[in-house]
Structures are given as C-alpha cells and as structure tokens.
C-alpha cells in the first residue's frame, strides 16, 4: 500500500467572513510518487488548494494532513520542507541576484551548510539543464529559463511533493514544452509526487489522475482519458478542450469507431491509420 502524502478532509475556505466560499467541503487524497493534475477555470479554487497545502492559507473548516501531520501554525515550517512550490510569474519568485544565489535561497533558509549547498546547486541545476548559467542575472534569462531555475531551487531542498501552480501560464509555447519536459525528467529521477495546477487540458495528459474543480467543488476525479471523454461537459464548465479531443468527437459523430479516447495527435493518428487493419 502506498503512503498517503496529502489528505484533505472536508476542507472549506473563504478569504473573509462575508465573502463566498472559495472551497466547499473538498476531500481528496494524494499518494507518494503520484502525478496529479488539478484543473479548473479561473476562480474555481484550484490555486487556493496549493496555498492551503503549504500553509500560506489556513482552512476555516476541515483538516489538511501532509505526510500524517496536520497543517497548523506550528507545523508549517516543517511542512514547507516537504512541499516545494513553483508559482505563475517567473519574475516575482526569483529572489537571488544570480541563478546560483536564487537556487541557494531555500537552502539558506533551512540552514544547510555551505559545502553542501555548492554540490546541491550543481546537481539541481544539472537536473533542469541550467548548469551553464550559475552566475547569470535574472534579467538575462527567458521566462522558461527562470521557471527552470525555480524548479531547481525547489529540487535543491529535496521535497516530497512539487506543486506547479500555473507555472507555465505566462510562458510562450516553447517555454511551456521546456518546462513540461524538465518536470517529467525530474519526476522520473527523484521520487517526487507532482501536483500540476492548470487551466490547460494539454498539461493533464501525463498525470496519473486528474481532479477537476468547478465553483470550489470537486467536479470529477478520474484518469486523463476518462476526463477527455467528457469534453462537452468540460466545455460547459468553462475549460478549453484540446483540438484533438474535438476532432475525435466529430469523427465519432461521423460514424468512425475509435478504440480509445486519443490524448494527443500521435494517438489519434495511430487510431486512424490502423482503422481498417484486421490484426
């Protein structure tokens, strides 16, 4: 049995007393080494979940357990050692004046000895493919490179779970693929759980499980393939459905029988050219 890493028990949250609930009675579990995507439109409460996990916010009702410990004022500093976060804006999370200073920031906060830091900076920058940029200043890096440095900074403190809170939302397509590739590699190498928070259905493909949020409630929880099959309903709650999924839908309406819901272009292509073969 895999260890439970994160557990939400009937969590409700609102920013102020008189404001509407941002999260309503949410319960879910995330296990070790799992890759989870949380998807939802703007204001569906998905980013609030990330902030609740590492104690940047506290719920009004319900309980959150990280590796068995409840999130409270006393435990947040321990919990933040286990939970690494990468935010949306590449510029506004870059603290150091150079790449290596920024990677070191998290380690400095934890009081890690200097010799240790130097080797860990080397390792984590290599893991994200930024080893040649040690002394580069942030304004000379692209958005994608800054986000990779942010990921390196999180890896350097070896957390149990990495949360990407819309980490690719402000990047161009090139930067986006860069980050997705880096994350997949990093997750394969370190035993790390991954939570991807996004409004883009393209990014859920590689995860084991998808949690769909709508109006502060969990709308569905299933595998990416099962989610893709519900594209009409997804569109109704304001999510962009990828072109492949729409195309597959249209083809099925025209009477083509697809054996499974395609997740990307390759899978659809595979389906189509083997359509009439008889093996």
């Amino acid at each position, binding site marked *: 049995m895999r260890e439970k890493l994160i557990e939400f028990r009937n969590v409700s949250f609102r920013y102020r007393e008189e404001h509407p609930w941002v999260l309503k009675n949410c319960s879910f579990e995330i296990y070790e080494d799992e890759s989870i995507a949380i998807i939802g439109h703007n204001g569906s409460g998905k980013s609030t979940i990330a902030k609740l996990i590492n104690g940047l916010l506290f719920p009004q009702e319900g309980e959150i357990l990280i590796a068995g410990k409840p999130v409270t004022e006393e435990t947040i500093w321990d919990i*933040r050692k286990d939970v690494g*976060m990468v*935010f949306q804006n590449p510029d506004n*999370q870059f603290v150091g004046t150079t790449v290596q200073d920024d990677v070191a920031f998290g380690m*400095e906060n934890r*009081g890690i*000895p200097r010799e240790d830091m130097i080797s860990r900076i080397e390792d984590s920058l290599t893991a994200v493919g930024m080893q040649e940029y040690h002394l580069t200043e942030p*304004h000379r890096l692209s958005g994608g490179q800054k986000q990779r440095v942010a990921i390196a900074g999180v890896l350097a403190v070896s957390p149990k779970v990495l949360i990407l809170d819309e980490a690719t939302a402000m990047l161009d397509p090139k930067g986006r693929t860069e980050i997705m590739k880096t994350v997949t590699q990093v997750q394969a190498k370190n035993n790390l759980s991954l939570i991807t928070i996004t409004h883009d259905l393209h990014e859920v493909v590689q995860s084991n499980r998808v949690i769909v949020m709508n109006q502060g409630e969990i709308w569905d929880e299933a595998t990416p393939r099962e989610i893709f099959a519900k594209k009409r309903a997804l569109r109704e709650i304001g999510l962009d459905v990828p072109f492949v999924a729409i195309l597959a839908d249209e083809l099925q309406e025209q009477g083509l029988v697809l054996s499974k819901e395609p997740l990307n272009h390759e899978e659809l292509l595979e389906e189509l050219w083997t359509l009439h073969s008889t093996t």
Partner: protein
Amino acid sequence: MNNALIIGQYVPGNSLVHKLDPRTKITLIFFFVFIVFLANNVLSYSILTLFALVSMVISRVPIRFIMKGLTPIWFLIVFTFILHIIVTKEGSVWLEIYSFQIYSGGVFQGIAISLRFFLLILVTSLLTLTTTPIEITDAIEDMLHPLKKVKFPVHELALMMSISLRFIPTLMQETDKISKAQASRGVDFRTGSIKDRAKAVVPLLIPLFVSAFKRAEELAMAMEARGYNGGEGRTKLRELKINARDIAVYLLFIAVIAGLLLTRGY
C-alpha cells in the same frame, strides 16, 4: 533584451583590487578619507597620490571609466581652486593684475584642496568600479553585524538591499514597456514645457507603482513558500574571506600611514 545593462558602475575584471575582500576595501577607504586631511606638505601629498594612482593602475580599470566618475565634480575641483586663489592672502605676491593680487599661498592652498577632492573621489569610485553591488551589500551586512546586539535589523536591511538590486533591471524593463504602451496611447514624454512633461510622467509612474506592489506581494508569498523565516539560523552561500593578499594590503596601507605621519610637517 538590454545586454549592456550594468547596475552601478562595476567594471568586471580579475585584478588584485577586484579580488580583495570588499570589507578590506571599505575599511581602507574609510581610513583613507581621514588621512587625506593629515597631509600638509608636498612629500605627504605625494605619498597619498602615489598610493591612489598605484591602486588605480593595478585595478586595470580603463581611465575613461574613472574619468566618467569624476565628471560631476570637475566643476567643484576647479571652483575651489579659483576660490582659494582669490580669497587666500598668504605668502608672497606672485602676480598683480591691476589692484588684484595672487599670492603664492593661495596657489598652493588651491592645489592642495583640489588634490584632496580628486584623491577622495578617485579612491571611492575605485571601490564601486571594482566591487559588485552585491559584494558591497554582503560587506556592509558583515561589518554591521555587531549592531545586532542592539536589535538593529542588519540581516533584513541587507536582504532589502539585495532584493532591490535584483529588481532594478526588472523594473527598468517594465518602465520601458509602460512608457511605450502609454506613448502608443498618445502620451507625449518628449515635447512641451517642463510642467507638461512632468504631468506626462504620472501615467507612467502609477502603473509602475501598482505593479511593483503586486510584485512585492507575490515575492513575499514565494519567499515564505520557500521557507524564509527571518535571519535566525540562516546559512549563507556567498562567503567573505580574508586572504593573505588582504593582510598584505593592510600592512602596505599601514606603511603608507606611517610614511605620511613621518613626512607631514607639524
């Protein structure tokens, strides 16, 4: 991307002056500022000038950068010189133009004071030319460390300085972007009276401030998420080290002070 953008005046290099510990440099300059006022004859001034010029030469900073640092005070140097010539009435009369006399004391005094100015600016700009702002910040944090005992927020101050240094280029890029965006909406930054131009800055500053505050909020959240909890129990990646060369430079400087005290007239 603006690749030529360098914060401060730092000129990258690998000279002895560049490699010195920033604390050594700051300490030496601090004392240099005092001993400049001890010099009072040709020989003692020569020693100080020699020291300053030798440091300048080994720093291998191109002359034009040093000259650039001196530009704003050329006027002051020349002005004090002329003032001394006119006002000081000591020594013998050298030149007489109508009823106006120039005394030898005035000329000497003028040269001495101008030289003092020149040396002070030369040496201090050598600090900023050979030391990165972040090194200076680290040195200040370290040198102010004793003030922690009286609850002075040394670490916070240093962090504030380093974050400002980090965000200067970011905010400059943003200013550029906003000014282009506003210009495209018809704001005129270049023509009109000073009053009009000052008014045109408002639509530039307000978005810049709003965004800076938003950045600050997000940065604070990111710092907290990465476990920032004040200066307590923090280790540092950037390390300052006093090496043999620092000690050698200290000894040399003490020799300069000794030489100065021996040669100055009482």
